[in-house]
């Protein structure tokens, strides 16, 4: 039984603009895939810790030392829109 998903909400969280047809198609596909993925729920995992890193290590740090930064011109040359040393984007709907 495919799982039902609020695809419009998920697409909004992911910032991907989808048409109604696309949403319907993805909703159906995701339902099928999630149904399969939900098999994980059949395994008993009480008391089993989750794995975030395959290697059991801790504390990979760097020293507090300044290293060279990128050249601004090179960085901004790849920007879709830049002016006066700044990246430029359209306004946000609600500003901080």
């Amino acid at each position, binding site marked *: 039984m495919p799982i039902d998903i609020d695809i419009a909400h998920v697409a909004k969280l992911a910032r991907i603009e989808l048409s109604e047809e696309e949403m319907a198609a993805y909703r159906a596909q995701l339902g099928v895939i999630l149904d399969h993925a939900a098999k994980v729920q059949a395994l008993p995992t009480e008391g089993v810790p989750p794995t975030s890193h395959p290697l059991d290590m*801790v504390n990979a*740090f760097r020293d507090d030392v300044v290293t060279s930064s990128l050249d601004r011109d090179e960085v901004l040359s790849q920007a879709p829109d830049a002016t006066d*040393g700044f990246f430029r*984007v359209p306004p*946000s709907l609600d*500003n901080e």
Partner: protein
Amino acid sequence: MKWEPVIGIEVHVELETASKMFCGCAVDFEAEPNTNVCPVCLGLPGALPVPNRKAIEWITKIGLAFNCSISERSQFHRKNYFYSDQPKNYQISQFDVPVCHDGWLDVMVDGVTSRIRINRAHMEEDTGKSIHVGDSGRIHSATETLLNFNRAGVPLVEIVSEADIRSAAQARAYAQDLRTVVAALGVSDAKLEEGSIRFDANVSIRPVGTEPFGTKVEVKNMNSFRSLERAVDYEIHRQESVLKSGGIIHQETRHWDEGEGVTHSMRSKEGSSDYRYFPEPDLLPIEVTDEWRDAIAATLPEMPAARVLRYVALGADADSAASLAGSAALATLFESAVEAGAPGNVAANWLTGEVTAWSRRESLDVAESALTGEHVRDLAAMVAANSLSSTAAKEVLGYVLAGEGGPVEVATAHDLVQISDSGALEEAVDEVIADNEEQFARLVGGEDKLIGFFVGLVMRVTGGKADPRAVTEIIRSRIG
């Protein structure tokens, strides 16, 4: 119906490390835009974060200063949300296992001390800076946004209190005392006006005597301690009047408007609160062993509260002690003055009074002046010996601060040394009495206010250098 405010405060502290949290770009707020950026803090494809060990030491230091427990193992998480100043569109932060947890800060308001519990202090990274450009200059009619990523990735410590605060004044005191502690640690210059420390308040109210919390409102954009108090106070009253008129409080974020003195509702960001936290796969867990924690604890300076008590024991009154403890420069001067032999209360008064006033007038840090602890001692001694009137002493202090030399040197050079030697004064008094027999007779007869007349004449005759109290005493003795 009596309402009780229930307030929690969230603080963000920018750490003054040399390099950023996850990359080697310099932390430099004066730099030209986008000149301290690299693949990591710009969120370029393929970039990976590597944590700054010093930042971990410093957050541990902060946690210890607030009596927190340090998690033996803590974990970075990704906090996912889209915003143009957030290069990866997620922030590396901490979720359920922060570095520090369960601490407190004791805060005094109107002589009453309360313990405000601290839930956690966790490590995260700052965002870039947005400049909203618009034709009317008002934020809500921006036509474009300019982005500078120099600040992106600067280490940030977030400190979250429990909702233990019960008034706007207490909120302010908590914020100020917290700031003092952080500044004393040397991990951040913690300047509210500059944004290196930032405060948000969570405000709710409930009927007095009840337990359940009311709906809380987040208040942002308080850029001074005074506006923090005003904003919290306003919000408490706003919520009271809403409830009184039968309305309900909406859980939302409100923006403090200092000019209008009100909080405005920010358009609610739909869905933005689902941050989909998950453990950061690019970073290993942080392990702070007992040894490491103890080594960091050994670097903690004396905390302000303990210092205040010590200064009181040295002779300063409570208020002066607090002011001295809150300023590194004044504290140093106070301690060296006392060590040099100055009486504690006198040194404290000079430092918190005239010296502080000078600092404000000249817009200079006391540390930049030429004043030493020995100077304070000498000044105090001269006043005690009556070689300087209190007016003259203030003038002398000014010259000392300006770097002209020690108090004795300066007082002599400016001819401010007071004559308190009784022989010289008696001579002057007798001279004046002899020249003003009629007035002296009236003084002896009971016109007591003529004392001032004679003191004034003696002052004139001595070029203003006589000690007026000593003069007065001698005149009285002549009355018989």
